[in-house]
């Protein structure tokens, strides 16, 4: 039976672990503008990136955006997930497909649509100007709020479907029992539904948080050149600066921060809901 996992393990080893080992080696090398990199074995790049106020700020911004987007997505997604999880109509599969529909559109295409909406001459500004609500176009594109909105639109289906699949498995009888015992709807949600759906909430939050931390297209297209997140910073070093060692270093820092917060969140969640 154990042999069944061999193909998957080989694939992961070849396509994930192998390149990561290579990248880690590159992160310890020294940048050269003409030779791409010079073979060394030094933690200099990590020290430089960790002590550079610019990259500290980029990591903080990335974390802030990811945490905010995860929280907002959870708040928006939960009621929808509850409805999807509880729906018993024969149209349920259509509802699931409709939830998935935004994922059929690529991130870049979706962001291009948002750009058309948010631009100074875009749909929103045109409507605001024509209705006289504003005298001058307002700045929507290339702002942090555009990025947050754009990211939430991308990750919402992941959160809804992850939570809905758990809510679906919670017996309705439990809600009826709580109601019969005099619990209000709010109390039933807080003491019964939420704790039982916690695994779905945790899984959804982790999935969404990881996606937010690694956002590239939405941050570049909607945030503009001045908005700083880690994935565009990694790209900048690899592609524009041709500085592979620093690009690899930043990629590992992003990975470490993402893994650290994910582990911390998972453990905290498990303690909160398993102990009780």
């Amino acid at each position, binding site marked *: 039976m154990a042999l069944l996992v061999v193909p998957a393990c080989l694939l992961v080893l070849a396509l994930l672990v192998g390149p990561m080992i290579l990248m880690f080696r590159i992160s310890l090398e020294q*940048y050269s*503008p*003409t*030779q*791409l990199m010079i073979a060394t074995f030094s933690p200099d790049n990590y020290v430089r990136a960790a002590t550079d106020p*610019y990259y500290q*700020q980029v990591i903080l911004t990335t974390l802030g955006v990811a945490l905010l987007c995860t929280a907002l997505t959870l708040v928006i997604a939960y009621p929808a997930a509850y409805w999807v999880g509880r729906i018993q109509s024969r149209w349920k599969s259509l509802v699931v497909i409709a939830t998935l529909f935004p994922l059929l559109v690529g991130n870049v295409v979706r962001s291009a649509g948002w750009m058309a909406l948010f*631009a*100074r*001459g875009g749909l929103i500004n045109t409507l605001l100007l024509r209705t006289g609500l504003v005298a001058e176009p307002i700045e929507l594109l290339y702002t942090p709020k555009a990025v947050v909105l754009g990211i939430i639109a991308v990750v919402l289906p992941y959160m809804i479907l992850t939570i809905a699949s758990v809510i679906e498995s919670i017996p309705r009888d439990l809600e009826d029992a709580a109601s019969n015992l005099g619990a209000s709807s709010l109390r039933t949600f807080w003491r019964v539904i939420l704790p039982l759906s916690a695994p779905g909430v945790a899984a959804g939050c982790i999935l969404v948080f990881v996606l937010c931390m690694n956002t590239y297209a939405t941050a*570049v*297209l909607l945030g*503009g*050149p*001045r908005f*700083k997140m880690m994935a565009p*910073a990694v790209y*900048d070093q*690899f*592609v*524009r*600066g*041709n*500085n*592979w060692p620093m690009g690899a270093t930043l990629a590992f820092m992003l990975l470490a921060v993402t893994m650290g917060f994910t582990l911390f969140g998972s453990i905290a969640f498990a303690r909160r809901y398993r102990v009780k």
Partner: protein
Amino acid sequence: MISRRHFLSASAGAASALTSNFSPANAQSSQLVVGTWGGDYGQLLSDIVDKPLIAPKGIEVVQDVANADPRKTKLLAERQSRRGSMDVACLSDSDAYIVAGTNAFEAIDAGKVSRLGKVFPELKTETAIPHIYSAQVILYNTNKVTAPPQSYADLWDPKWRGRIGLADILWSANTIAAALAGGGSPTNFDPAEKMLMDWRSLDVKIYPSNEALAAALKSEEVWLSVMWLARGFMWKKSGIPLSHVVPKEGTPAIVFEASVPRNARNKEGAFTYLDAMLDPKAQAAFADKMGYVPTVSDAVLPEDIAQQVSLSEADRSKLVKLDFAYQTERSQRTLDFWNKQFKG
């Protein structure tokens, strides 16, 4: 129902078709892989060089489309390999300089590229043919700017506050303009740092791409920019009311070049291709469609096109020859300053 035998034979057939048709590893000698930009450039190469000039020679061109940075990185990463993935590599002059410095390109001479004799001498290099070129100018909206700036330094006049737009992807070219405005030179970018910070305080707008900048010029969100004359020509053709000024401090040129990697699999075909890129009709077509100036003396442009894309004798004397050694050595500092201080 699909049997195991059917599945295996179909898979093998598909794999065979894939490797024989698409993998550069199995490219035959009649196939030529050209590493190039996509968009208008790639399409024009296909329409003006590949189909009419190369296909009749029995060479099938396969375009490896990517931006310059991934192509440059690929060339650097592959330079130790016995067999590379490209036969012809198109790069800008500054990128070609970096790759050529690693000895990754074949030397070019008239024995290999017969039309090299027609190339303007100042554009020749040892390892590349100059395909097309343009100059960096000040673009301005003719409806909004009645007294256009005459120098890069004029762009720091507070009256243009919030009305100047720059393309983020041209960080290096924009830094050079700032250096020249501040009294710097091709070997001294130091003044650029103060000038960029002054520009920032004048609320200069930065756009992620040339296309986003064009949209901002069209909507009159910004009125002025530092840009290649050729781009200005294309934007003007698309209906944006623009004109240009060749700045007093001088105008850095950009030359788009093509080289043959040492580990190319089809070198003979590659040199044939470089020759075709210098064909006078092909050169004139690039000027007409994209606004880039021919690099050969026998390419004749229609007068109206020539007026719009070429530099006058007086303006040609203002061409600034860049020092790529200095620019390359300083590239990380330039990028870091652009990202961390100017945009930060």
